[in-house]
Every structure is written in C-alpha cells, then in structure tokens.
C-alpha cells in the first residue's frame, strides 16, 4: 500500500541532502571538537561552520546560537535560564494558553517553585492579543514566552508586535519557533526577539538536535554543568553530525520561503475547502489566514478523533489528533479548549500537516478516505443520530471557521 504522510507537524523526513551532509561526520570526521589534533580540528571546523550557517539563516551572530538536544531543551533552557538569571529582579512570568507542553509544563514548574504566572487567553482562532500582553506586564516581570506558531492549529501569532511590546517595557521575550522555522520568514535583525527555540526535525533535519538563539546581552542561567562547550552554556561533547545536519536543514529551509510556502498553501487550501464542503458538520480550527502553510486542523463533530486516525492509517494515511506529543494522554487538547471549544468538538479534532512531498492526488485521496470513515463512524455514534434528528427538524448549520478581530 502506498503511504501518505500528513503528519509533518509531528516530525519531518530528513532531506536526502541533509543525510548526505551528515554521513561524513559519522564516518571519516568523527573527532571530538575539543581535541587539538587533526581529527578534533576537522570536527571543530564543522561546528564553527554549522554555527555560522545557522546564524546566517536567522540573521543573527554565530555566538548567539547555543546548540541543544532539541526544542524541548531549548525551551527549558530559555525559561529556566532566564528565571534563574533574573531572580533578583523579579519572578513574574507571562505565557499564553496555547503553548506546547515544553513551555507550559516548564512555566508551571517555575510557578510551583515560587514564580507568579500569567497565562494569557487566546481568541477563538488561537491568537494572543498584544493589548492583553501590554496590560499583563508588571515591574517584576522577568520573561514573556509566547510561541511563534502553534503546533496543533497552526495559528501564527503577531510575534513582532508581541516582541516590541516587551522590548518597550524592557522585558526579555522568548518565542518557541519550533513549528515556524522554514514555514514563515523570520529575520531576527529587525524583530526584537531575545530568545528563540528551534528543533531540526521539524524542518527536514535530524531528531535530537535543536538550538536556542540568545541575543547578546541577555542574561541566562544553565540547565546542566560540566565541560566548557557552547561557551559554557551547554556542556557535553557536541553532536557534530546532527549539528551539521541542522545547519544544512536550516539553510535549505529558509531559502525561498515565500515560494515553497505558496506551493504548500495551495494544497492546504484545497484540502480545507474540500473537507468543509464535502463532509457534513465539520469546522476548521485555528485562524483562517494567519496560519502555517501546511497546517489543516478540523473538528469532525460527533466522532472521536482517534477513530478517524485509525481508519486513515488503515488506508495508509498518517495524520494526528491534537499534538503527537500529547496523544498519550486522554484529555482533550488544551489548545482547542483555550480557543473556547467544547469537549465533544475538541475530541473530534484531526490534524493534517502537509509537507514538501505531498501532492494534489494525495489530498483528494485523503478527503475521499476521510469521508468514508466519517460516514462509518457516525453510523455508530449516538451523538450524530441525535444531531440529525435536530437538523432534519431545524435545518441548523454551524459556523465553519472561527471569528477573530485579526
């Protein structure tokens, strides 16, 4: 069976050129960059060049990049690090209700340890209002952390405005850009973001490697202690092949974002249109316009998302319901709930995230498959029976997308 991968939000296949770039560092150039001999110097050169490439892709300085083991570590380092470094100044942290668990769980732990925490609400499309942020900032606010783009519903925040608000008030601004890199253009020269997290496996790079951008002058504590690597901010023998892979991947991912994003947006919009038109009682979650080019998130009313996933999988289609990272839990997505959705609708959510390899045929096949699955599952669903009885009486019909100021 031909398989169709529509879960690029969970992870992406490393690009062949990325794997090619990494291989020599598993084979010939296996040295430890801390060693003074030729094997070490080869590794050091790769490390330096990778840092330069990564910095260039973001419009920052090489010494502002700290390589980490992934997005989770980058988020933890940013949050725990700033909170610790600025403990003398204050202990108030601001975040949003739709953050990834790597941010949300971390700020909650900070709260348990004595920080005070403000969780900003979002509108029905998942957008944080910069006015809310402005009002929430206090004298003792030491960190604002709001993601660039959401992993579940794809909503893109007004980060530039949020960052400026923080800069105006002299508060460090961190953004989890794990889902954004390679999908929306980000040039940190012009935007006053102080810290930014990224993870290579979300933009066709390898797993287990990420980076934290830390603007010069930003105070930061550490998560781990040991050797002098990464300017003492992140000890441990550097993962050279993965770092080389990250650099290659970010170089490729940030090249011609408008062009690549337009191509994926075509697929996305066709997928959304067909789903909303061809399946009864389906709504789009997330913002209709300010959304990642590859993200489709719908709620299929009166069925539970997992059943859809299983049917799709039986037909070779890989999708997700809520974030892959949280699929172990049985609770409805905190992101959808924060957008004001009821439990039933949240449980019926389905995320289809498109990537560079997908085609129009795949989109059409997916819609057809999903339609069959929805029919089948609704045939067993008590909720749908009740709904049909209502509709047949009233000709009711809900909103198909959220409404928002922006």
């Amino acid at each position: 069976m031909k398989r169709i991968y529509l879960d690029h939000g969970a992870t992406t296949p490393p690009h062949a050129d990325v794997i090619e770039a990494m291989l020599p560092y598993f084979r010939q150039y296996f040295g430890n960059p801390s060693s003074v001999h030729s094997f070490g110097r080869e590794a050091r050169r790769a490390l330096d060049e990778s840092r330069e490439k990564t910095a260039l892709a973001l419009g920052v300085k090489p010494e502002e990049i700290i390589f980490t083991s992934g997005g989770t570590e980058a988020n933890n380092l940013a949050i725990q690090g700033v909170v610790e470094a600025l403990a003398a100044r204050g202990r108030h942290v601001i975040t949003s209700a739709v953050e990834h668990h790597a941010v949300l769980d971390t700020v909650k732990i900070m709260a348990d340890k004595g920080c005070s925490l403000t969780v900003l609400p979002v509108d029905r499309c998942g957008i944080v209002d910069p006015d809310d942020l402005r009002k929430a900032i206090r004298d003792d606010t030491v960190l604002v952390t709001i993601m660039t783009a959401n992993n579940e519903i794809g909503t893109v925040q007004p980060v530039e405005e949020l960052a400026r608000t923080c800069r105006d008030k002299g508060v460090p601004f961190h953004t989890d850009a794990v889902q954004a890199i390679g999908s929306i253009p980000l040039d940190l020269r012009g935007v006053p973001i102080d810290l930014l997290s990224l993870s290579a496996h979300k933009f066709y790079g390898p797993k287990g490697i990420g980076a934290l951008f830390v603007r010069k002058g930003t105070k930061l504590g550490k998560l781990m202690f040991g050797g002098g690597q990464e300017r003492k901010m992140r000890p441990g023998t550097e993962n050279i092949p993965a770092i080389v892979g990250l650099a290659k991947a970010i170089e490729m991912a940030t090249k011609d974002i408008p062009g690549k994003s337009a191509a994926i947006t075509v697929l996305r919009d066709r997928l959304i249109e067909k789903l909303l038109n061809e399946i009864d009682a389906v709504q789009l979650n997330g913002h209709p316009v300010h959304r990642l080019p590859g993200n489709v998130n719908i709620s299929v009313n009166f069925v539970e998302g997992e059943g859809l996933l299983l049917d799709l999988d039986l037909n070779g289609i890989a999708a997700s319901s809520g974030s892959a990272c949280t699929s172990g839990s049985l609770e409805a997505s905190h992101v959808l709930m924060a957008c004001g959705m009821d439990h039933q609708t949240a449980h019926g959510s389905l995320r289809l995230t498109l990537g560079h390899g997908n085609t129009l045929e795949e989109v059409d096949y997916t819609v057809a498959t999903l339609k069959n699955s929805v029919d089948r599952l609704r045939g067993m669903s008590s909720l749908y029976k009740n709904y049909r009885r209502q509709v047949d009486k009233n000709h009711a019909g809900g909103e198909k997308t959220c409404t928002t100021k922006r």
Partner: protein
Amino acid sequence: MYNEKVMDHFQNPRNAGEMLNPSGVGEVGNMKCGDIMKIFIKVEEGRIQDINFLTFGCGAAIASSSMLTELVKGKTLEEALNITNMDVAEKLGGLPDAKLHCSNLAADALHKAIENYQANNSPV
C-alpha cells in the same frame, strides 16, 4: 497500539446501530473523557435475544462495545450481569493501559440497560 483482535472489532464492529423498541437502554461515559456508549437490549424469556450499540469514542471504546455485544448475545440476564469491563478487555486480548480506565465501559452500559429493563418491567 492495538492488537489484531481489537482492530478487527474496530474495523468490523458487530451489532452496531440503533435498535427500535428496545426492552432496555443504558448509557455511560462523559464528554470530558470523550467516550459515550449506549447499549440497547431486547429481552425475551429472561435472555438477551438481541443487542446493539452506539458509541462515540476511540478505537478501544468501539471495539469493546462490539466485543461486549458478541459476548452477551443469547446469555441470561444473570449471566450478563456477571460480565465485567475487565472480561471484555481480556476477550479482546488486552487493551493499552491508558485505555482501560476511560474507554472500556461497555459492560457498565450493559448493566445499566438491564437495570433499565428491570425497572420498566418491575411489578408496580
């Protein structure tokens, strides 16, 4: 995630659908968990002659509903009342830990349906 037996019941659910004029109906679950099961029974001469289910829920919820109906059909009410959620999970060859708590409630729904039948048919 699920074994073959569970997947079989998910793909080919037995006795799915609504029943017209059932002898008893039972519903369990809540929307927060995301699993709602409704069991319909037709009782004749103290036996469950027919049984149907409607389930809103995950794969485990659908498969356990289906398995329960298969287990129960033809049994006496007494036998049916002895069937537990764990029996259903066992007959399915096991369910993931995370699913045992919320999604494996079909026997509860059955017991409610029997209660409902008994209430309807109790001497006034």
